[in-house]
């Protein structure tokens, strides 16, 4: 114990990585994501970053190019605009974004569309569904990727600074944990109970992230349509609006982000998708 000799650790791994030619997407990720935001995108399948319990297939090169470019356009740049610099994303966004070709399918007939692990990594599935057609479909992009991205990012902000406990008291014992998908089988039923989506009923953390993500990724018209889904009630809408006040206050007071400004920025970007170049690197 006492007679150790101190050895200096070599900063290089003992395992030598084989040299792999960099392609245009590798270079784009390096100069736009790693240098600007300190975020890396793993579009090539890496087993240790993926969930081995599922049969996963890798993302395609062409779909990865689209999602990488759209990620910057709809995921990062709205925050850059609203906060005035890239520093916000660079400091708080998870450092690793993992692309998987299709969803992770469970044998019970459900599938996983996105996951976040701690504050470190976001995994996006169904990347191969992104094509020239779906790439300009704003609703598809929101549903498939960007709702998840903003939702998971909100979790990370919450882990850095917790949201007020008053939020939880609004629905109190109404959270149903794992049985959310059988408790509320439609958006309308969830809204009637004061949740923006069935998943929001699982816990206060999910409720908070869902409300945030739906609010900033949908236009006022779309959001209102969601609130007025079949089966919804005015009482439920009131609960949601009360929660929304807490979410908005939190974002403004803790992060100095006005959610209405952020939403206007995102909605405007979605409207301009048709002229956004998602294929050139």
């Amino acid at each position, binding site marked *: 114990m006492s007679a150790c000799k101190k050895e200096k650790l070599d900063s290089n791994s*003992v*395992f*030598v*990585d*084989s*040299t*792999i*030619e960099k*392609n245009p997407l590798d270079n784009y990720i390096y100069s736009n994501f790693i240098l600007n935001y300190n975020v890396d995108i793993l*579009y*090539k*399948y*890496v*087993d240790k970053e993926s969930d*081995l319990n*599922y*049969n996963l*297939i*890798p*993302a*395609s*090169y062409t*779909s*990865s190019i689209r999602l990488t470019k759209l990620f910057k356009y709809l995921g990062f740049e709205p925050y850059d605009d609203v906060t005035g610099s890239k520093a916000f994303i660079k400091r708080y966004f998870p450092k690793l974004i993992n692309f998987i*070709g*299709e*969803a*992770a*399918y*469970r*044998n019970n*007939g459900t*599938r996983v569309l996105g996951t976040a692990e701690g504050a470190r990594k976001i995994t996006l599935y169904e990347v*191969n569904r992104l094509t020239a057609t779906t790439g300009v479909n704003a609703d598809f992009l929101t549903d498939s990727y960007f709702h998840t991205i903003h939702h998971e990012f909100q979790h990370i902000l919450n882990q850095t600074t917790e949201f007020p406990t008053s939020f939880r008291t609004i629905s109190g014992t109404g959270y149903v944990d794992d049985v959310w998908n059988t408790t509320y089988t439609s958006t309308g039923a969830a809204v009637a109970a004061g949740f923006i989506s069935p998943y929001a009923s699982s816990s206060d953390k999910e409720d908070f992230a869902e409300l945030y993500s739906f609010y900033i990724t949908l236009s006022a018209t779309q959001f209102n349509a969601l609130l007025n889904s079949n089966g919804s009630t005015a009482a439920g809408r009131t609960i949601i609006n009360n929660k929304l006040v807490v979410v908005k206050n939190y974002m403004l007071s803790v992060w100095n982000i006005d959610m209405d400004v952020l939403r206007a920025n995102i909605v405007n970007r979605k409207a301009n998708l048709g002229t956004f170049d998602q294929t050139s690197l």
Partner: protein
Amino acid sequence: MKRNYYLLLVISCLLFAACDKKKDRVFEESPTQRLNTAVTNAQTILKSKPNGWIMQYYPGDDAQYGGFNFFVNFTSNANVNVQADYIATNETSTYKVYPGAGPILTFDTYNSIFAFFAAPGAISGAINYDVGYGGDIEFLVMKATADSVILKSRKRGNNIIMVPMPANPATVISNYRDALDHYYSFDSFRFETATGQVPLSYGAGNNLESLTDNYSLRVTETGVDFYKEYEVNGIKFKLLTFKPATAAYPDGYYENAAGTIKLVPIS
């Protein structure tokens, strides 16, 4: 008594506590160096064939759905061109060899030829919702030489062999595709030996099913090659060669070298 044993154990630990750390190595190099060498070697071997390799790809637990021939050509340190006997597609994607429990070969971007077997059934429409055919995209390199590369699929543990593609790849690929079409041109099969017959039907992939057993095989240019040695009516066999039609066998038949077992197509 029990306490004495513990005491003995503790004392023996103390006795051996101050050993010299240095041990004679079985190999000259450290395990890390040997793994690095193995990775480099695997990469070099894979890339060394200008016409690429014929990969005997078996998806599924116990290779239960039979095997397919993939024609893979590692054209650079990153890119691989893939064709197959089951579909007339030619697709380039990426690969990598990296250290794990040994060198691991991974096909790390989407390639539809692998994806058909690797995708969950919800995507491929095959077998079941979550697993599908259960094909792997990652392989442990067990052995890599100029003559062959022996792989083990990482999730299913199937043996997957790659042999060099001969000098005329277009012809070879075309022959494999024709042979597979031919194999699928019948209604069913039967095994035939001197002592009896076993009726067989097509399985979910390149496998044949009797009432009780599953036979996993791969269709080659000259016949069928089974995943492992099977035994029917006491006859052991693995490789069968196609023989042209005769009066008794109007669709021809596949037969082993000894002529003791026939796989007879029925149309």
